[in-house]
């Protein structure tokens, strides 16, 4: 509850601060202070009661320990995002306070998605999450690509929301309730599954797959991620995506009992396989790092979907580790990328000699995304695939495919390392558009250290799951 209410209030505060504060830097400081407060507030909620006790809302929103932990992860990731990319957000356009406000609203939407108990809240959460994103995508008003991406995202997003509504309506028709637990109870006795219910579930599956950009519903992702201002791509690819995956799990976990059978796993396994293949193979051919990261985020979503395949404790632990390490690594890479002149692989040439600290941190991020041991990314992938293997070991082909895709991903991730360390810089143009501050490499290294810490000792995170 803390997350939803405080982030919504913070959003309002940010909007007003845009009226009174003219200095962009000050606005960033206010936003950073608010997000730090927000993450502390979500942390306080972990082992204790929420600050806001609203018993009437129980039927609508019910926060589990798991949801709270994910909330903490999202806010921590956002904190790092604000700190690392604050200056880039200021450079996007004139309405800096509004951008921050919109991002706080996105967090409020994420908060709802982590705790919804009613299909209407799911719809509301998804809308609160995505509508600010349409605006953020189009934030560069003078840039045609940004406008196009925004429009595309809006049209596709509206379409998928329509599908989601249709699904919710069909389920309501079959089950007579929007409440997840009621639907779950009724579904246990309703065999064979009701036709309308089945159709509704499939529509929900499709629309959620759209939100997490799983293939074959991924077509909007590369264009939108590429067109949006780089700083906001970072936000969309990490915090929003993790929230959507968790909502995906929550939606299908308790309520869709009859569907849990082998048929469900066939569907999801096809979804995962397509996502992994499309994401990885297309990423190999990209020349722009930004676009490569867009495709790689598709493939990363494929790994996170293993939790939806498995629905077990392993999968949940995995999402916690995966969500944090993936978000931190991607935010880190994007924070460097959004400062760079040339966002192709060549732009990274010789970075290690000029900025050894930044290059080291980037190496850790890339290793984590590729799933090399000692990083959180490895343990994340490990947990996800273990979750799949623990729930149904007859899908060996899927696990082998997933792991081979990880090997493919090494190819395109390592191109960044190769450029930074092994290639010399040819042109004289500076690497970065704006001079980087002295604190920036140190902050990046702190984030990298955090990723390694998760990779070595995930207990510091997982212990909170079992209070």
């Amino acid at each position: 509850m803390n997350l939803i209410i405080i982030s919504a209030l913070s959003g309002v505060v940010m909007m007003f601060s845009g009226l009174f504060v003219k200095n962009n830097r000050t606005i960033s400081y206010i936003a950073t202070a608010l997000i730090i407060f927000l993450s502390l507030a979500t942390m306080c909620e972990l082992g204790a009661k929420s600050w806001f006790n609203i018993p009437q809302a129980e039927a609508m929103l019910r926060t589990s320990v798991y949801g709270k932990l994910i909330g903490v992860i999202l806010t921590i990731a956002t904190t790092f995002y604000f700190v690392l990319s604050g200056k880039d957000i200021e450079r996007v356009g004139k309405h800096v306070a509004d951008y921050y406000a919109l991002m706080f609203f996105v967090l409020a939407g994420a908060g709802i998605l982590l705790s919804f108990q009613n299909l209407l809240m799911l719809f509301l959460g998804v809308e609160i999450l995505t509508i600010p994103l349409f605006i953020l995508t189009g934030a560069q008003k003078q840039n045609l690509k940004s406008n196009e991406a925004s429009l595309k995202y809006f049209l596709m997003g509206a379409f998928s929301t329509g599908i989601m509504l249709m699904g919710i309506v069909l389920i309501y028709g079959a089950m007579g309730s929007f409440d997840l637990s009621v639907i779950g109870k009724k579904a246990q006795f309703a065999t064979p599954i009701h036709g309308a219910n089945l159709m509704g579930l499939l529509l929900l599956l499709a629309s959620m797959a759209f939100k997490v950009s799983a293939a074959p519903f991924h077509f909007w992702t590369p264009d939108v991620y590429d067109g949006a201002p780089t700083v906001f791509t970072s936000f969309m690819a990490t915090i929003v995506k993790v929230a959507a995956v968790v909502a995906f799990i929550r939606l299908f976990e308790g309520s869709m009992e009859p569907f849990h059978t082998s048929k469900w796993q066939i569907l999801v396994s096809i979804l995962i396989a397509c996502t992994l293949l499309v994401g990885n193979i297309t990423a190999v051919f990209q020349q722009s790092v930004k676009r490569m990261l867009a495709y790689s985020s598709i493939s990363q979503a494929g790994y996170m979907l293993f939790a939806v395949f498995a629905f077990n404790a392993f999968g949940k632990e995995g999402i916690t580790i995966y969500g944090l390490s993936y978000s931190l690594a991607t935010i880190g890479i994007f924070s460097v990328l959004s400062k760079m002149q040339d966002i192709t692989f060549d732009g990274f040439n010789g970075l290690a000699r000029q900025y050894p600290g930044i290059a080291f941190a980037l190496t850790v991020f890339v290793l984590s995304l590729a799933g090399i041991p000692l990083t959180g990314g490895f343990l994340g992938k490990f947990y996800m695939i273990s979750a799949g293997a623990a729930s149904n070991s007859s899908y060996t082909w899927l696990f082998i495919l997933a792991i081979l895709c990880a090997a493919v991903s090494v190819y395109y991730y390592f191109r960044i390392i190769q450029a930074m360390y092994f290639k010399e810089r040819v042109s004289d143009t500076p690497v970065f558009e704006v001079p980087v501050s002295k604190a920036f490499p140190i902050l990046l290294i702190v984030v990298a250290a955090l990723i390694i810490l998760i990779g070595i000792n995930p207990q510091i995170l997982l212990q909170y799951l079992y209070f």
Partner: protein
Amino acid sequence: MFLVLLIVIPLIAGIVAIASQSAAIAKIVGLVASLATLGVLLNVLCIPNGSEALAYSKLWIGSLGANFSLLLDGPGKIATLLTAVSFPIIFIASWNNGYKYGHQFWGLMLLAMAGLMGVFLANDMLLFYFFWELALIPTYFLCSIWGGEKRIQVSFKFFIYTFVGSVLMLIGIISLYGKTPDASFSWKSFTQVALTAKEQLFYFWLFFVAFAIKMPIFPLHTWQPDAYEQSPTTVTMVLSGIMVKMGLFAVIRWLFPIFPEASSQMAGIVITLSIIGVIYASLIAIRQDDIKRLIAYSSIAHIGIMAAALFTKNNMGYEGAVIQMFSHGINIIGLWIVVDYIEHQTGVRKMSELGGLAQKAPNLTILFIVLAFANVSLPLTNAFIGEFLMFNGIFQYSVCAAVVACLSIILGAVYTLGLAQKTFYGEPKSLAAIKSDAPLNVIVALSLIVVMIIAFGVYPKPLFNLIGLVTGAN
């Protein structure tokens, strides 16, 4: 506790070396740390096998059942001894090689050493996998930054090859983990996994491919000659001297105990492949003109014999292979030291452009000739002990295989003596003249190796004592 030190000393020294920003300090840190590791290890080696002091365990990831657990057994003793002995020698031998960004070079070497130690000590499957990769990553950077012209492509090929192998192993680990009786990654739980014959075969191959790529066994060897050639020679010493032993060691520590039936059943195929590789690599070595490639292929041949001997699963083959792990490791490092010196002095690696080095460098020649004899496993050298036992083991398994494998001794003599003759004897070529005899540090490093070659060739008992009771084979 001592076991932890074996990993921690090089790890911390590596970080210190990188942080020091000075090549001179990094070199001293490296030498001191590797000697300290050797000191600790020699202390540990006196403890008899199976003793409590040779195991260490601490809870790591509780919810997964993974422990930070280390164990030093017979083959582990040989492998760690090889690592601890080799690194000081490598550091001494390449003391004067000025590398650009030297502190990073020495630091990464030390990190690789920590990874290798971890692989040889880990007694927990997940931990083993961690170190397996940890050893790979510094090597990848070492090859790619300081290597030859084609370094980026070649080391990337090497990385992808080994990474694909390790992820296959990872699939095996995850699946077997699900079948362990107590959901744990410990060596013991993995050996207790009950598998049907068909499952054993499937998982056997998942693990074996990872190890076979590392060794490398024909036909998975194609990364190796390129990687050895393009890497800086100092790194090649680590790659060929120690890192390939990871594959052999993993077969002994993990593959045989987990899949006893499958490994016996598949022994025929593995031995055939290994022996094909031995003959194939020896024949190619004869045709090589580049010294580095020649030694690379000779290494494939030697490793092939070791793999074949291991898979015979009899005592002789097993003991021979373990002894040979050590002998081959130091011998080949010696050869690389000579190559490194020649390359630095003359700037060429082609035998056709070299010749008559003996006239200017008599000391180097004498040491090299002893190394060459060891490479063809002449009696009284350490390699003879291992090879003799291994051929005996292979002979017990199959006479036919032994006959074909023995050809490798003849072929080995052809290319090794050819190498000695073309580079050190004959008329000196004007293009690639060597100016003086090897400097003190090279002579010291080579002498240490030569002393070990002869000492263990005459009196190998200390090594056999280290192996102790035969546990892996039956």
